[in-house]
């Protein structure tokens, strides 16, 4: 077990318990929370955990700021969509799309890194912003290929769709969607464990050293540019793989679900809320954030109803204000947990 976690223990009893609760909830989500909407939420949490963890590899472990993470996520998603359309529905299309998406992401990351990381790390942030905007524009312009703003619908193997009925288990109808969920769950788990291994490898230690003091890292013999470049490619490829899982799950890709700058901001918030440079922070950040995104409105609607006799309060709690409250939650969490939830739990304060 410890080997699976690469020796990186949660190092806090509370954190361990929270992580176990999340793990069990996600592992048995189809049976614990039957219903289309809750399964959608669970799958989204799994995928965002990987997406956020891969961003943490860059931001938290390597000290590199990138604004192109959704672009890489999108490359994986569009890879699956395009291959499924052009090769026809089938597992081969899923595999080809996934592999090509990851390779394209790594190659693009390599180019961006080589052009900008040699100069200065801050330059990298600006280049990623420019490239990501250009790609977003390109995707919406090339509507013949990408479906433009409408995105693409496509078919995946029937085994993974609700049409594939498999009977009942524990009183819950099991079908292809359940299988699809487990593909997402185990795929995400494997990718997360892989990232956890990378940050605890000799390579991961070098990244931390570079983050701490790149000048000295170079002076003891590490070629800083190469380490940063490899970290960038790895992070991009993992984001693309998460994107492929997302595409397989949704059977739809569009600029809003994969490429948008809003998602980029969400990822940033999730890393910061969870705790940068901890990996486990990705699990907490993504879970909390996706839950809030999906259920805050419902919760506020209920609260608004319950307080309808009071003055002002129901207006403040109106579901339309959910973004405002999400903002407030974010500010509070950064204020009270500057090192993220994981940092806070580990320090025991």
């Amino acid at each position: 077990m410890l080997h699976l976690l690469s020796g990186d223990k949660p190092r806090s009893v509370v954190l361990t318990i929270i992580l176990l609760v999340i793990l069990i909830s996600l592992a048995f989500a189809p049976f614990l929370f039957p219903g289309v909407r809750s399964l959608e939420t669970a799958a989204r949490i799994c995928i965002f955990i990987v997406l956020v963890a891969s961003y943490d590899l860059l931001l938290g472990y390597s000290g590199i700021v990138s604004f192109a993470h959704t672009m890489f996520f999108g490359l994986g998603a569009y890879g699956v969509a395009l291959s499924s359309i052009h090769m026809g529905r089938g597992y081969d299309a899923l595999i080809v799309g996934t592999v090509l998406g990851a390779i394209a992401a790594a190659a693009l990351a390599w180019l961006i890194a080589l052009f900008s990381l040699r100069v200065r790390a801050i330059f990298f942030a600006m280049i990623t912003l420019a490239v990501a905007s250009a790609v977003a524009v390109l995707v919406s312009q090339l509507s013949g290929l990408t479906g433009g703003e409408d995105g693409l619908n496509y078919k995946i193997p029937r085994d993974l769709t609700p049409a594939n009925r498999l009977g009942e288990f524990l009183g819950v109808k099991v079908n292809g969607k359940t299988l699809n969920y487990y593909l997402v769950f185990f795929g995400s788990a494997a990718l997360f464990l892989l990232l956890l291994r990378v940050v605890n490898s000799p390579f991961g230690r070098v990244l931390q050293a570079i983050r701490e003091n790149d000048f000295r890292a170079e002076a003891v013999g590490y070629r800083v540019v190469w380490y940063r470049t490899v970290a960038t490619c790895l992070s991009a490829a993992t984001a693309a793989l998460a994107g492929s899982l997302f595409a397989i799950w949704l059977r739809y890709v569009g600029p809003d679900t994969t490429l948008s700058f809003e998602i980029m901001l969400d990822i940033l918030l999730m890393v910061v809320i969870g705790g940068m440079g901890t990996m486990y922070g990705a699990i907490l950040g993504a879970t909390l954030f996706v839950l809030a995104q999906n259920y805050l409105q419902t919760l506020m609607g209920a609260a608004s109803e319950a307080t309808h006799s009071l003055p002002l309060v129901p207006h403040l709690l109106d579901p339309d204000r959910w973004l405002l409250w999400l903002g407030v939650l974010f500010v509070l969490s950064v204020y009270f947990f500057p090192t993220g939830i994981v940092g806070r739990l580990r320090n025991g304060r």
Partner: protein
Amino acid sequence: MSQTLLETKDLTVRFGGHVAVDAVSCAFHAGELTAIVGPNGAGKTTYFNLISGQIPASAGSVSLLGEEVTKFSVAQRCRAGLGRAFQLTNLFPNLSVLENVRLVIQAHRNKGFSLLSMADSHHELTVEARAVLERVRLDTMEDQKVTELSHGNQRKLEVAMLIALDPMVYMFDEPTAGMSADEAPVVLDLIAELKAERERTILLVEHKMDVIRALADRIIVLHNGALAADGDPAEVMASDVVQEAYMGKALENV
């Protein structure tokens, strides 16, 4: 003379119009400890920066073990056998003491691009790192973060990281600056030990005359970036150049 490990030829750097290091030609040999002296601002640290590659030279060349390295990056020079401890403490502040040293040994052993093994499973690196920490008497603090260490202990760690690198050329830039009187000997004894090994060459920037007298085989004097004297310690120390420099007078007439 024994083997030349490091040589600079007409090494020069200009910052704007100011010549900080001025055509310094000097060779350093195996088994030799060379003290580099000169008043503040003489260009000692800048000379080190040129040798280790932090600053590109305006003119001249550096060779290491017979190979010209003037065009090499800092990391490449390090890999070619050059090791440097810094005047201003320059560590990995939020990592543990052990990790700081372990990282150096890992670089030396070329394990940096191992992505899928666990860092802690490379026991041999940890064992080596502990042995180095023992030499500087920091072994009891291996789990502390660098930021929790006293200034003196940070200086010791700085030296430990250089020893962990096991270079052919050791460069120490005021290694005992700011250390208390009872801490400095640990570092000085270590330098003496390294010197006794006789295979490497050691460059030591140091102000304290008693330290130089005890350790140096040779002294070079930098003044306004230029080489003002080079030779046997007793002779150089007796010379007008050093007398004036350390009396605090300007050396306008050298």
